[in-house]
């Protein structure tokens, strides 16, 4: 399955470069950084790419096989689990959080948890018509598969660190980047897999 998706990925149309060939990435980074004169305390790291971000930028999200394998291998090590080891949380909390696009912006209360904002890109509950299509529909996700230990873990890993599954996935590395907590991630796992969740109704 993974191979299939990677070949689809490679086949994906990519915008033909108009000018960026030959521009020094260090120059681009310097221009970018210099364009933020006021950086809140603790935010400087957001302006600096990690290795995975730099690689995906360089390859415009179509990394060659070796680079892709290196990204996946690195990101697999970049997954944390809740202290008690439980990976199925509270779907009711998650379905609300899935509709919340706030958090961790410069104008948000920094003490508040960020929302998952899943609906921006995914369909979840068929009653909510305001869903995006950047990501696939997740309607019936838990009906399509058995919620065994392996599926639960795979689902958790995908949400916590999408690139541990697919290099340069468009989906944020929600947990790995510290955007969502491990506890929030497991709530989303329950939202996708619990038979009581509206995703599976």
């Amino acid at each position, binding site marked *: 399955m993974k191979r299939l998706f990677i070949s689809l990925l490679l086949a994906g149309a990519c915008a033909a470069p108009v000018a960026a060939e030959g521009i020094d990435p260090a120059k681009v980074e310097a221009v970018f950084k210099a364009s933020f004169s006021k950086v809140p305390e603790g935010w400087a790291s957001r302006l600096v790419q990690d290795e995975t971000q730099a690689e995906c930028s360089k390859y415009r999200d179509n990394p060659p096989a070796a680079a892709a394998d290196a990204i996946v291998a690195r990101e697999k090590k970049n997954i944390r689990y809740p202290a008690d080891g439980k990976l199925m949380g509270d779907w009711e909390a998650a379905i609300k959080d899935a*509709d*919340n*696009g*706030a958090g961790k*912006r*410069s*104008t948000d209360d920094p003490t508040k948890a960020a*929302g998952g*904002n899943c*609906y*921006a890109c995914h369909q979840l509950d068929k009653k909510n*018509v*305001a869903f995006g299509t950047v990501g696939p529909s997740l309607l019936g996700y838990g009906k399509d598969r058995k919620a065994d230990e392996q599926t639960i873990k795979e689902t958790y890993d995908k949400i916590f660190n999408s690139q541990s599954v697919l290099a340069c996935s468009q989906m944020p590395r929600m947990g790995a980047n510290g955007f969502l907590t491990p506890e929030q991630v497991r709530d989303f796992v329950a939202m996708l897999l619990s038979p009581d969740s509206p995703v599976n109704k």
Partner: protein
Amino acid sequence: MQLTRREVLALSVGATVFGVAGLRAGGAVAAPEDVKKLMMEFAGGEPKTGRIALTVPEIAENGNSVPVSFAVESPMTDKDYVSSVMLYADGNPVPTVASFTFTPMSGKAVATTRMRLAKTQNVIVVAKMSDGSSFTDTKQVKVTIGGCGG
């Protein structure tokens, strides 16, 4: 009043987050029964359906500007014309949105405007004719959350 950049940003962003900048924060929202009462008072009884057609989109991308228009069948002569039309939104904090007064010089009893809707709800028009009879039409508008911020 000189706002700091931070305040300016917070305010401009606030408008996005609230979606319907004009209406969301009020709290109190009309119950559909309130509108029913308002309608009955205006019409002097239960208005009939027909003769007035309301046009609204079934789904609105943003509640701040929902296009609304109506047209009433009437010869608009000195003896037989539409005297007034009420426009209600049954889920808004103030359910009366506007009232329109026509005369035979209006030529037609039609109007188009833009309204705010705080959430998904019914939009209702009631037309009162010069002979005292009244007519109504209702349509639901779904108001959706939009954009990356939701």
